[in-house]
């Protein structure tokens, strides 16, 4: 398939050049995805699909555009590419638009990232059903259960990219995820619900299906009899799973595009001590079996380990070639890979004990942040922390503040990294946080 994809991509480059493009980048991608969902003792949904696509980036007369199609029939492809070049020519010239310079392709790591497990392509229907049944059994006999759904999601992905200025690269990966979503009867008409899924490029590294379902069940059981929490200023412990998405929000505008557009509170922070010295974030694209590992980024730039924040000092932003040129910033990479958040030496229980009293956040519900100012407000579910332990479950609460200030008050980090996210974060502890509830 790789050879075929390479030929198709090279062909797209040729026809675009013939149609008048100065420079062109073409990517052919192929994927197979299988879904098994099993609910309350019976198979509910089976989805088995293969998909393909072509994406091109066209540079013509100082102009730029990008296009994608799933229709790869040769006669239509030619028309598609010609139209893409015509659209490009109708735009306005932009001095900052140019194809990624070849020097940024250089230094590509040859490390084996181990992103392909050949066993994934061979997963049988029986194996998927066996996982589903193992998951289903865990919650189906619980006396409060209303519904339990087991899900198995696996597949393979491959892409090949070539450019008219010498780039050539391929990606291949597999994935296998499974887990459980459980709803239990709670007070009145209320239902308690939660889910837990695990995944990896490699099947062998996953915990057993029944242990995953058990984690999901324990999470839901801990939600029973949840009440509205208080309006209070308190210490906040964010569990490692919820921390990954909070780190995502923090880094949302940490890129050249937002900075250049005047929409980022990260502007001017490189070299500054902007956050608590407990905060370290490293972007590492070269982790073996990492969920976002890669040898090169979307622009073909060779992947490198990049510190974003070290002990509270901002070291680098995500800078792509276009906005970097426009903002006068040195190019790093425009898109995040795996993000490693610095860990401390305490376990979750030790963090709880050290806090004594506060709010333990286990998941978010909605909310948002303003990229320009960093002001945020998020809904949450979790528990009160009482006497250094996990106390009563609470919900219907918001946490409100400013992201830069909040991460200035990062007091402790745990040693309990949540592994099923490309953002690998431990639990995080913040002081003096505004909660609103009853």
């Amino acid at each position, binding site marked *: 398939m790789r050879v075929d994809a390479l030929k198709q991509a090279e062909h797209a480059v040729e026809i675009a050049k013939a149609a008048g493009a100065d420079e062109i980048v073409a990517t052919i991608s192929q994927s197979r995805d299988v879904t098994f969902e099993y609910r309350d003792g019976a198979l509910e949904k089976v989805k*088995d699909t293969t998909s393909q696509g072509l994406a091109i980036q066209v540079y013509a007369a100082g102009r730029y555009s990008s296009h994608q199609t799933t229709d790869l029939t040769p006669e239509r492809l030619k028309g598609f590419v010609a*139209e893409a070049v015509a659209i490009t020519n109708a735009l306005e010239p932009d001095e900052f638009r140019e194809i990624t310079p070849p020097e940024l392709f250089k230094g590509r790591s040859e490390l084996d990232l181990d992103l392909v497990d050949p066993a994934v392509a061979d997963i049988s229907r029986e194996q998927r059903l066996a996982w589903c049944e193992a998951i289903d059994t865990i919650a189906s006999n619980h006396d409060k259960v209303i519904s339990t759904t087991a899900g198995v999601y696996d597949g393979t992905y491959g892409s090949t990219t070539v450019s008219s200025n010498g780039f050539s690269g391929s990606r291949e990966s597999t994935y296998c995820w499974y887990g459980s979503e459980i709803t239990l009867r709670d007070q009145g008409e209320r239902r308690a619900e939660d889910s837990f899924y695990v995944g990896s490029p490699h099947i062998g590294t996953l915990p057993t299906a029944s242990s995953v379902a058990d984690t999901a069940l324990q999470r839901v059981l801990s939600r029973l009899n949840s009440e509205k929490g208080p309006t209070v200023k308190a210490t906040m412990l964010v569990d490692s799973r919820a921390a990954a998405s909070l780190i995502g929000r923090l880094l949302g505008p940490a890129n050249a595009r937002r900075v250049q557009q005047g929409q980022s509170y990260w502007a001017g922070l490189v070299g500054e001590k902007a956050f608590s010295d407990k905060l370290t974030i490293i972007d590492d694209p070269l982790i073996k079996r990492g969920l976002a590992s890669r040898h090169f980024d979307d622009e073909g730039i060779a992947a490198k380990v990049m510190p974003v924040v070290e002990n509270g000092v901002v070291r680098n932003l995500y800078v792509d070639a276009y906005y970097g040129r426009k903002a006068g910033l040195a190019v790093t990479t425009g898109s995040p890979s795996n993000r490693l958040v610095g860990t401390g030496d305490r376990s979750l229980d030790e963090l709880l004990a050290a806090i004594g009293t506060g709010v333990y956040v286990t998941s978010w519900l909605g909310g948002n942040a303003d990229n320009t100012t960093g002001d945020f407000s998020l809904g949450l579910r979790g528990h009160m922390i009482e006497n250094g332990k996990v106390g009563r479950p609470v919900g219907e609460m918001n946490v409100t503040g400013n992201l830069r200030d909040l991460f200035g008050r990062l007091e402790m980090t745990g040693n309990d990294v949540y592994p099923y996210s490309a953002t690998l974060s431990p639990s995080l502890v913040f002081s003096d946080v505004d909660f609103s509830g009853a």
Partner: protein
Amino acid sequence: MAIKRREFLGTVAAGSAIVTMPGFLSGCGIQSATAISAAMPANPFMDWFGVDQATVARVMSELTSRGADTADLYFQHSRSNSLTLEDGIVSSANSGIAQGVGLRVVIGEQTGYAFTEDLTLPSMLAAARTASAIASGSQVVAPQQFNPLAAGNLYTTTVPWADVGVEQKLPVMKTIEQQAKSKDPAIEKVAVYWSDGDERVMIATLDGKLVTDHRPMARVTVVVTAKKGGETQTGYSNIAAREEFSWFSEDRLSAMVDEAVDRTLIQFEARRPPAGEMPVILAAGASGILLHEAIGHGMEADFNRKGTSIYSDMIGKKVAENFVTVVDQADIPRERGALNYDDEGNKAGRTVMVEQGILKSYLHDQISAKQYGLKATGSGRRESYQYAPMPRMSCTFMEDGPHTKDEIIASVDRGIICETYTNGQVQIGAGDYTFYVKNGWLVENGKVTAPIKDVNIIGNGPESLKRITMVANDARLDTGGWTCGKNGQSVPVSQGIPTVLVSNMTVGGENAG
């Protein structure tokens, strides 16, 4: 791409669903070699996809060879175009074409699904065999001929988007930018994002229907960044509809620009409200987000047939005051959430979810309708041929009530008014939901006193319905480009509401005690 989906599964809690405004960058654009207007003979859609009745019948027969209660072939061709104006020039464009057929077979609550982007007979037959594997019975009688239903007329266009070139849109975008810039010297940057598209859908069903629908969509967004002293603020506005180019009139676009500029500049004065519980007034229009989250998702019948929604056992019960009527209606001409037919080939129409305070009807697709012994409400929707349909909202709103906006404001001693929103989310089983307020106002002693910004509001669906104590007579649908996400599928929706008072909600604020 695969990683994103898994991350979604891993990090979004069970049974939750969200609605958002667009990310400014994620346009998916289009324009292609073949003009849509070119195909127009007796059966234009069949020709478009290069298939005929016999081919469709052959594939349907294969799809149902191991039995089926219902089955469908969902052919789709979508083309989209987007343009970006930043720093005074329109310097990037994107276009996309997605074409394929989704094949679905349903037995009871079981679904087998496959799709292919290769519309040749061998490839479609192979996909049909894959989808049929869920069943283990014997062949059902599949139709040999499909009966074409009359095309709907909710969003007929005279000029398809494929015929509108970059050169027509470019000057409009420039005008938007210049207008915005001229409004105030504090405005440093203006960005304009344009996206449009045409979608052609053809659905052939096991009961012999052949439904076709041509669905246009367009959205324009303006983002304003202003600086005063050392402080920077960003605000935006957008308008969206199943419309054509001529809809983007000067008046409509200047109203959008004014809105974006006002929303940006007011933030220099706006503060956070105090944290905690208080009365919340929802301004007419976009505040329909309350209905989408507090009740709409919970009324989608897939959650209810599984028993996982807080509304699962509440049909026929009194859930709100007599003056509260909540409707989901797809047949509103040209609205973003409008549909002639749903994605299972059923006529889309009006479903009254709450009638004068009584919980009346869920939103049904065919699977849930069969289970409840009811007629489907035409609420089966899907993001594309790559997905099986499920119950979804279209245009969700509350009808007018007996009060006035002024009466409502005058009745509040200390509370807030919510005016613009970015996103919301709901927890289906617990009924807890949230929405994020970008702009609003403080109300003190019955008067609007000061601007507020950036607060999340959280409540519980059934409790909030009970707490709707006043409903004004100024209902309107919002024209913003709302997108609803559920189980990894996004669909365009509309929402609306009159001015409403909810007597108590939890407001995310500062200076908690």
